[in-house]
C-alpha cells in the first residue's frame, strides 16, 4: 500500500535520514522504531508531505506522491498524526472530529453525524460536547486518532500515539487500534512503548542515525545485536550475551 524508496534528507551538514526504504502492506500494522533522534519523525514528515525529501520516492496505492502537499496526500487517503497532540482548542470534541469529516462530507449536519459516530467508536461518546482543551492526554491522543479516522483515510501514520500514557490507557488504545485495523485500515506507527509494538506490529523497521539498520518481526528485532547496540551503545550486545552465558 505504501512503498518508500531511498528517502534522504539533510539539514545543513546533518544527514537526518539516508536512503531509508520501507513497505507497508495493506491491512498490516508496521512499526518504525529507533532511539531518540534517529530520524523517525523526519521520515514521517517527508512521507506525509510536510517536508520535501532531498532524494527518494514515496508511492501510495501505486501512485507516486513524492512532493505532494499534505492536504492532497490526505485527500488520497493517507494521514499523519502528531507526536505532540494538536487539538483545536476553541472547538468541542465533536467539532474537532468534524474538521476531519468535512474532507469528504461538505454538509455540516453530515460531517457532525460522522464525527459523532467516529467519536463513539473510539469510546469518546461522553466527551463529544466538551471543549477539546479540557481533555486529558489520553483523551487528546484519542481525539487525534478520531480526527484522522474521520477524514476517511485508509493509511494512518501514528507518531508516538502511546507516549505519555499510563499502562491501562495503553492497553485500551492498543485494543482500539487493533479494532480499527480489523475494520480495514492500515497503520505505520512510530513507537517507543515496546509493549505496544510487540502486541500490535507484525513487522517493524529500525532506524538509527538516519539509516535503516534492521527489519523483521518485533520478536526478531529485540534479539538483533545491531538493534540492541543502537539502543544501548557499542558492545552492549556482546556484553549481554556474555552475561547470559555466565
Amino acid at each position, binding site marked *: 500500500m505504501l512503498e518508500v524508496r531511498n528517502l534522504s534528507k539533510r539539514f545543513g551538514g546533518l544527514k537526518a535520514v539516508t536512503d531509508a526504504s520501507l513497505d507497508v502492506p495493506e491491512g498490516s500494522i508496521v512499526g518504525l522504531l529507533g532511539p531518540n533522534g534517529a530520524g523517525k519523525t523526519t521520515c514521517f514528515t517527508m512521507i506525509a508531505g*510536510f517536508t520535501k525529501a532531498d532524494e527518494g520516492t514515496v508511492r501510495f496505492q501505486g501512485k507516486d506522491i513524492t512532493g505532494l502537499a499534505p*492536504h492532497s496526500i*490526505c485527500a488520497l487517503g493517507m494521514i499523519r498524526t502528531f507526536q505532540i497532540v*494538536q487539538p*483545536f482548542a476553541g472547538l468541542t470534541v465533536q467539532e474537532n472530529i468534524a474538521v476531519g469529516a468535512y*474532507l469528504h462530507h461538505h454538509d455540516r449536519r453530515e*460531517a457532525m453525524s460522522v464525527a*459523532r459516530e467516529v467519536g463513539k467508536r473510539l469510546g469518546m461518546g461522553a466527551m463529544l460536547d466538551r471543549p477539546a482543551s479540557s481533555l486529558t492526554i489520553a483523551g487528546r491522543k484519542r481525539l487525534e486518532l478520531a*480526527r*484522522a479516522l474521520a477524514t476517511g483515510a485508509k493509511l494512518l501514520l501514528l507518531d508516538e500515539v502511546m507516549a505519555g500514557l499510563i499502562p491501562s490507557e495503553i492497553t485500551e488504545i492498543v485494543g482500539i487500534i487493533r479494532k480499527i485495523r480489523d475494520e480495514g485500515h492500515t497503520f505505520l506507527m512510530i513507537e517507543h512503548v515496546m509493549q505496544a509494538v510487540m502486541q500490535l506490529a507484525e513487522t517493524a523497521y529500525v532506524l538509527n542515525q538516519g539509516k535503516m539498520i534492521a527489519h523483521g518481526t518485533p520478536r526478531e528485532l529485540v534479539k538483533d545485536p545491531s538493534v540492541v547496540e543502537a539502543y544501548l551503545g557499542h558492545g552492549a550486545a556482546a556484553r549481554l550475551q556474555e552475561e547470559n552465558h555466565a
Partner: protein
Amino acid sequence: MRPQSIGQIALIAAALAYLFGVYFASSPVWMGFTINALIVAVVALSWNITGGFGGLSSFGHAALYGTGAYASAILQVKYGVNAWVGFGAGILAGALMGVFIGALAFRYGLRGSYFALVTLAFAEVLRICASSFDFTGGGSGLQLTLAPGVANLQFNDRTIAYTALLVVVAVVMGLTAFIKYSRFGAYLIAVRENEDAARALGIDTYKIKVQAMAISGAFGGLAGVLYLQLWLFIDSNVVYGSAVSIEALIGPIIGGAGTIWGPLLGTLGLHLLGEGAKHLLPNAPGLNFVLYAIVLICALRFLPNGLVGLAGKLGTFKKKEDDNA
C-alpha cells in the same frame, strides 16, 4: 447562533433596544452618530472574518474599506456610472484587494505580527497613492454630486438611510453566522487554532486564508461604499487612514472576536463611550482614542473573549442532557 446564557440575551436585547430607540430619539444627532457606528460595525464584521475566525490579525483593514469607497467614487465621478453599479464594483474591488494582499502575504507564510505589519503597510501605501494622483482626486478627495433618490442610492431622509444600514448590518451578520457554521468556517477556525494540524487533516490552508481575505475584503469594500453613499465625500485620510484600521479591530476584540454579535456590540459600546467622553470633556478632541486604548488594554487583560464571552458566563442555562449520547 443560539445565545448561551441570560447574560448574552440581555446584552443583545440592550443593543437591539438601543438601535430601535434611535428611531424615537428627539435629536437627529443620535441617528447620525449611530449611522457612523453602524458603518464601522460593518468594517468590524469584515475584520472579524479574518481576525476573529481565522486568527489573521490585520492592522490595515482601511486598505479594503478605502478601495471599496474609491472604486465606487471613481466610477461615479469620473465615468458617470450608476451608484448601484458602483456599489457592486466597490464590493468586488474590496474583495480583489483582499485576495491580492492575502495571496502575497500568505504566499510567503506571513503570520501574526508580520501579517499585521504588512497589512498596515499596504493601507499606508494606498493612502499615500490616493492622495498623490489626480485619478483619485489627489489631496482634495472625491465628491459625489448630490442627487437624492433610490436610483442613485442617496437618501435625504436619515431615517430611511438608517433603516437601510440596519438591514445591511443584519445581512452581514447573517452571512457571518452562515460562514461560522459551514465547512469553510470550521476550516478557518482550524487554521486559527493550529495550522499544521489543519494541513494534516486535508485542508489547503493557503486557499482557505485567501478565501477569507476575499470575503473580508467584500465586507470591507461594502462598508467603504456605504460611507461614500451616506456622506457623498471621501478623501485618502478619511477612508485609507489608520483610524479605520484601528476601529476595525478594536470593536471585535472588545465585543468578542470570532462571534457573530461581538463586532456590533463592541463597536456600539465603544462609540457610545467615545461620544460620552466628547460631551463630558468637549475641549479634548481625540480623547476618544485615548479612551479606546484604555478599554482595549483592559479588555485584553480581563476579557479574553470580549463582552460576549463575559456575558456568556452570566446566568448560564442548565445544560440539557444529550439524549443521543
